[in-house]
């Protein structure tokens, strides 16, 4: 695999990049902070067999004008990538987002509009070379409109719908889309929130996602138990959803 990862500086992206590096995949990291990227690239380099140097370039989801240059840099370093992984994203609690419209606008823009723009740029490149994999982190929060995550969930619902559409439209043409739907995972994104039962660890999520990328699975829940949890939640009638707190 020759993979570009946007969001490898933290959390599940960091875990994923490490596991990919350890098994010898060629990597190129994109993110918004140069010194952080440098450190994460060094970390991946140390984990790659033979300490092969992992490159990086800046790419901020807040700034779509930079997407092409970032992907050019990745293409050049990797000699044409075949996989693009996006773990980057923002979170805010419902209370935070309701209280702060700037933050809400930023979240909706970054998590949905700009992520889609980035994926479109990546998709064009992958399809131009005949095939490739686009793996993007959405969320279980996008599966159903739910009280605690109305706004964040809406941004992820849009993203999930986009990824599902891509799979339907382009799978036959060689584009493999993998939509990852994590449940609650212990990263700094969720630090300070009370973990529900079945909270996951980034490492376990990462190995599950890597396996899904290898097999080209269109949708993957992680930890796996969330597939069943969400199955039940999707079946609950509206009057129940209005009553319950999740």
């Amino acid at each position, binding site marked *: 695999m020759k993979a570009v990862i946007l969001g490898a500086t933290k959390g599940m992206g960091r875990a994923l990049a490490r596991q990919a590096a350890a098994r010898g995949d060629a990597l190129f990291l994109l993110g918004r902070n140069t010194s952080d990227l440098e450190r994460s690239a*060094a*970390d991946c380099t140390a984990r790659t067999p033979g300490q092969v140097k992992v490159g990086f370039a800046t790419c901020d989801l807040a700034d779509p004008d930079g997407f092409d240059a970032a992907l050019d840099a990745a293409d050049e370093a990797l000699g044409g990538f075949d996989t693009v992984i996006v773990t980057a994203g923002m979170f805010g609690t419902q209370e935070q987002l309701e209280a702060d419209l700037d933050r809400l606008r930023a979240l909706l823009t*970054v998590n949905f*509009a700009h992520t889609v723009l980035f994926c479109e740029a990546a998709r064009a490149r992958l399809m131009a070379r005949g095939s490739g994999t686009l793996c993007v982190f959405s969320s279980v929060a996008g599966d159903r409109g739910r009280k605690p995550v109305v706004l964040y969930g809406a941004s992820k619902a849009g993203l999930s719908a986009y990824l599902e559409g891509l799979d339907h439209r382009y799978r036959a043409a060689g584009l493999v889309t993998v939509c990852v739907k994590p449940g609650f995972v212990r990263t700094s994104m969720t630090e*300070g929130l*009370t973990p529900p039962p079945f909270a996951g660890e980034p490492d376990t999520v990462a190995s599950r996602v890597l396996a899904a990328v290898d097999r080209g699975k269109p949708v993957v829940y992680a930890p796996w138990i969330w597939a069943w949890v969400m199955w039940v939640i999707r079946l609950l009638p509206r009057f129940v959803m209005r009553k319950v707190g999740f």
Partner: protein
Amino acid sequence: MDAPPVPPDALDNRESALQRSNTADVGEIGGWGRVMVPGREVRDENLERLTEDAVLCRGLGRSYGDSSLPPPGVSDVAGTTLADRILSFDPETLALRAEAGLSLRALLRVFFPRGYFVPVTPGTTFVTLGGMVASDVHGKNHHCAGTFGEHVTALKMRVADGRIVECTPQQHPDLFWATIGGMGLTGHILEVEFTMVKIPSPWIYMESERVPNIDAYMTGLAEAAQTWPMTMGWIDVLSSGDQLGRGILMRGRWAEPDEAPEGFPEPKSRPGVPFVFPQFALNPLSVKLFNAAYYRKPVGAGITHPEPFFWPLDAIHDWNRIYGPRGFTQYQCVLPKAAGKDAARRFLEVLSRLGGASFLCVIKDCGAQGRGMLSFPMDGISIALDIPVRDDTQQLVDALNEHIIGDGGRIYLTKDNFTRPEHFAAMEPRLEAFMEVRRRWDPQLRFRSAQSVRMLGDPQ
């Protein structure tokens, strides 16, 4: 599509992680001995930001007592475990630099299969580099390799005035050596640089031997230390009379390639202790049975897996739960050579007179004292025992402390929850010099822990 512009402030979440979390509930936090205090750990990848207003860092919380717990009135400690990147490794010089929250377990997962090992490992891999430095940990090779701190070449630290400084044995040596074994009280360690070692194979050649009593044990330990790079052993503290201190002595070295099995030792699975045991599970009978059974375990010589050799307790997840709801403490002391050949025997006699029972009592000889200003080991023997917390634990620890003070011994801060300030002062002539450096870098004593308030008289 024309997306609306994103206001820059909305993305740039620069408030420190400690402030950000202040809405979450303050729960309870404990050391490995599970004696709890109010508090919580706040984690962030960015240690520089996280430590801006922190009074204490905490790694994996494997210190047994209150070293990693917030002082009274402070709720948050800065949890370092998300700051875990390897920053560089030079296969020529073997210099490795990493963020302080990197765990020994994660480090070894990368480097052990490649033929590199840490110069010193404690008895568990669930420790962070920051914790290894702050406690200046020692291992089975202490008599040859010294403590971990002796292999550290540089530390990047946040100090009390807010600056971030690099310290080495040459640059700010006072800060450097006060931090090695300084229990997090001199500043926050952000990065650690140290020298790895190359090993001939990932397997261990080990010999073990059953010894009938403490005198034979001590003689055997001293002999083994002459030729073996790693020694340790275990003592049955419930035996008495002629058999007082009977035990099992182990000595080991890395296996050479021609005697080692093919391939890398398969990682062992880790069953867990699923719940906190009720207090009655641990009683004089179960302890006696455990000790007797352990004494009967097969001994011999041969190639062995590194995991049970270095980290036997890592085999069981959450093993600290067997001590029940009140938790436990570890009493670890070192007795100097000057205390005489019978120092261990006298200690065990005092212990059995006091009725102290322990599942595991580990006795090991130590080499010369290191340069860390409060570093624990010194030339002599170290004795460690796990003690369940009961109503009389304070008296037991007091009595043991009074005994070891008479012998010129001292306790290991990273294990302690009960030592009185006056006892610690009596066993630690280096304390004043340490406090002087600490005050030089942190005049207000901003950096402090539950332990430092309890034992060093730090402001609340």
